[in-house]
């Protein structure tokens, strides 16, 4: 099994799906040139600029164009350069991509993938650092995935492109250079299934994207102090693999949710509500959330560090659960 970076795994996934299916098109700002991080580097040379299409800075219209192309038989992959700019395309995503299958009584299908990177990395400030996944997960008709490692990034992207629904594929910029083993061959990860990354008996940590690595490091530290921690990466937040999370909590009786999005109204609230519906009487302690404060992302690197959930907060919170 070769090692790849998260970024290379995404590029390989795009390359494989474009080779496999001539109806897959990539559209976005600067994509034919490789984009700002180099994810689409080399694709236009291989597939031509008619399939790897540079667009003007018109996110809303490009999203609508991709939806229209999907109604006419293509499988577009749209890149939104930063999730902060998905705000400009929300009308098309929410009112058309998400609803056309339902509103048409099943006549239309929208096989659309939206690749977008999110999160805090490199002190880019409030307009290039947000985590907006819970907005998207609130919309019926959209699927939302957030891979935390190279293997899942490739497998989920390939699954997203083959899915007949709009799938928002959220990449964390801070993970682009991280390395990991990626299975050979046609590697697919089903959308809607969580991964148990570390088994444990006394507490469950559910973490997303960039915070998965932080949670795993916290679990190591806690093991040193005698606390056995299970770490779950939902990978897909809509649909959410409720069963895997609930079964874990029934076993451990304690849960902490970690994400980089602000705490209020975040996906942690949804997971908490769901777990209490299914496993309230198994809980020995309140469910806690470790997330960003209810504030925009600051630009200063020192404030940015304060903003992020870190290993120390997780360890402290877990110890609190044990009194």
């Amino acid at each position: 099994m070769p090692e790849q970076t998260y970024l290379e795994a995404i590029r390989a996934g795009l390359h494989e799906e474009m080779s496999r299916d001539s109806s897959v098109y990539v559209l976005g700002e600067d994509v034919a040139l490789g984009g700002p991080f180099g994810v689409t580097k080399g694709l236009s040379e291989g597939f031509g600029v008619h399939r790897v299409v540079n667009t003007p800075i018109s996110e809303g219209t490009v999203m609508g164009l991709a939806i229209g192309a999907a109604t006419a038989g293509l499988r577009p992959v749209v890149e939104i350069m930063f999730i902060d700019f998905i705000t400009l395309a929300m009308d098309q995503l929410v009112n058309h991509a998400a609803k056309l299958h339902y509103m048409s009584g099943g006549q239309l299908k929208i096989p659309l993938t939206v690749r977008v990177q999110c999160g805090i990395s490199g002190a880019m400030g409030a307009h290039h650092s947000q985590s907006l996944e819970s907005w998207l997960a609130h919309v019926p008709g959209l699927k939302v995935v957030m891979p935390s490692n190279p293997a899942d990034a490739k497998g989920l992207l390939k699954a997203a492109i083959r899915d007949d629904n709009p799938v928002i594929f959220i990449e964390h910029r801070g993970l682009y250079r991280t390395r990991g083993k990626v299975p050979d061959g046609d590697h697919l990860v089903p959308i809607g299934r969580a991964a148990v990354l570390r088994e444990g008996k006394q507490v469950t940590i559910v973490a997303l994207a960039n915070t998965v690595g932080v949670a795993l490091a916290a679990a190591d530290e806690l093991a040193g102090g005698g606390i056995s921690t299970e770490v779950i990466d939902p990978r897909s937040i809509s649909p959410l693999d409720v069963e895997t999370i609930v079964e874990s909590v029934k076993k451990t009786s304690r849960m902490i949710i970690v994400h980089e999005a602000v705490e209020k109204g975040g996906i942690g609230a949804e997971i908490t509500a769901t777990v209490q519906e299914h496993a309230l009487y198994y809980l020995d302690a309140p469910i806690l959330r470790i997330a960003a404060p209810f504030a925009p992302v600051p630009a200063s690197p020192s404030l940015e560090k304060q903003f992020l959930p870190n290993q120390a907060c997780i360890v402290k919170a877990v110890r609190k659960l044990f009194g």
Partner: protein
Amino acid sequence: MPTRKENSKDLIDLLRRMWLIRAFEEKVSALYAERQIVGLLHLGIGQEAVAVGTCSLLRPDDYVFGGHRSHGHALAKGADVNRLMAEIAGRATGYCGGKGGSMHIVALEAGFVTATGVVGGTIPLALGAAFAAKEKKQGQVAVVFFGDGAGQAGPFHESLNIASLWRLPVIFVCENNGYAEFTPLSAHTKVERLAQHAKTYDISSSTVDGNDLLAVRTAISKALGKTRAGTGPVFVECLTHRLRGHYEGDPAKYRELSQLTQWKSKDPVARFTRLLKSKKAITDNELQAIESEARSRAEQAAEFSLSSPWPAEEEVATQVTADLP
């Protein structure tokens, strides 16, 4: 003047298509007044010449997109009268099983891809269908209908720019009916003729009398010639007027009575009828037969719709996502 000589049979057929839309929408209006149909209805009575003048020239596999006032566009593209009215009435037998309704009609079998409740929202979608058509190289075009209100929305300008830049086979049909909801165009923009925007983006354009069926056909015919030849998009602005309010129940007090009277005298159905009579292309008996056939089809559609079942309760949350292929 039409670009080619139309024979009487063709002309009579065009009148028949306009009458079907008129009778359909008048029936819908009557059912709404009786509370047999509920919801938010935007009728295009008075604008039929644009829908028929455009769609009568399209191929079955061309893509048509509409807006919130699009019953006529769907019918003109060949949507089934019964299934369309049943959809507006919220019944299980409607095109969308009652999940779409008046503003979200989809009649894919007829090439009517979708309407929308968002003003200007389908303009980018039409670009996408045109993008796919260009890649498939089968000569299809995409047509999108929108009103003058959409001309002040961002996606309108972004779409004109991209369509021109990529030479997409799309025809923009602007139904300039002078009002964006309750407000006259003059209070929304200094740009009186929306075709002027097309010039900015280097798109071939024309402004025509949208209540003159043959004038619309001439403009669309020219537009199709260019678009199918691969030279890029065309913009056709049709000056028209809705003879009803913005929505059913809107008393339209913002409109001067004299203005309404003036536009009524330009009613596209009556006007085309007068033209056919002056050319002696149609007899009074034929005229009467066309109207009564249209009204009878609308009556039958109403009976079909109102006797159809409501959607089953469990349909409330089905088809939210498509099954895996």
